[in-house]
């Protein structure tokens, strides 16, 4: 029997689900709504930059991007299969989802390394 890579993809999906559930709501609310709209006092440019430059912050942000993107790839792939029943387009959907997640992870690594 051919070994399936599905368990590996599922573990990435599951890890991404946990990371996304814990971190994304608070980050989305603060960084992209409350701070730009002036509901709460935003951190200064310099203090935010020094916070992001800490190795632990870079590591957490990288893990957040990596796992969340693979979470998206897996779940979105099955949404297309189950919701729209287009499993026959697998050869298009599979590289689009996981390839997109890989590209996003590489971009995240590049930005966080050089920031």
């Amino acid at each position: 029997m051919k070994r399936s890579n599905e368990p590996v993809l599922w573990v990435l999906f599951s890890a991404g689900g946990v990371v996304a559930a814990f971190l994304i709501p608070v980050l989305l609310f603060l960084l992209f709504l409350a701070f730009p709209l002036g509901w709460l006092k935003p951190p200064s440019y310099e203090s935010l930059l020094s916070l992001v430059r800490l190795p632990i912050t870079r590591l957490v942000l990288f893990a957040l991007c990596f796992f969340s993107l693979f979470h998206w790839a897996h779940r979105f792939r099955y949404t297309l299969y189950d919701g729209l029943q287009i499993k026959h387009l697998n050869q298009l959907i599979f590289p689009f989802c996981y390839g997109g997640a890989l590209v996003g992870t590489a971009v995240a690594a590049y930005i966080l390394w050089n920031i």
Partner: protein
Amino acid sequence: MNEVRQNPAYTEFRPRWYRAQVSTWWWLGRWSYLKFILREISSVFVAWFVAELLLALSALSSGPGDYGEFQDFLRNPFVVATNVVSLFFVIFHAVTWFNLAPKAMAVRVGGKRIPDLWIEGPNYLAWAVVSAIVAWFLLRA
């Protein structure tokens, strides 16, 4: 052994299998189906958040000018609307994820399943603690 293929070749000697036709919009028929699809769609907003985060980090590393422009972008009414919808979906993701945890982790003590609340409760508590820590770092900075 022959595998059952997705699209086998049909001949006149091998008739087409019977497969019930399901409408593309099957998930609109019932609230629980729609909730399932909405939960799955939440992943799109998770990806949107990551894209937005990468834009923010890239602007942050280019300098204060670019970072200021990115803040203006975040004040665009369409972006604000997208982020409000995204916030709803990522919270929906978190709640459905934590509610699923007891079903994924069947912990038994003394031969009996422990109550769902014993697994959900710590998850929600951890969510509150993690959110408070992140908020503390960002609000103090």
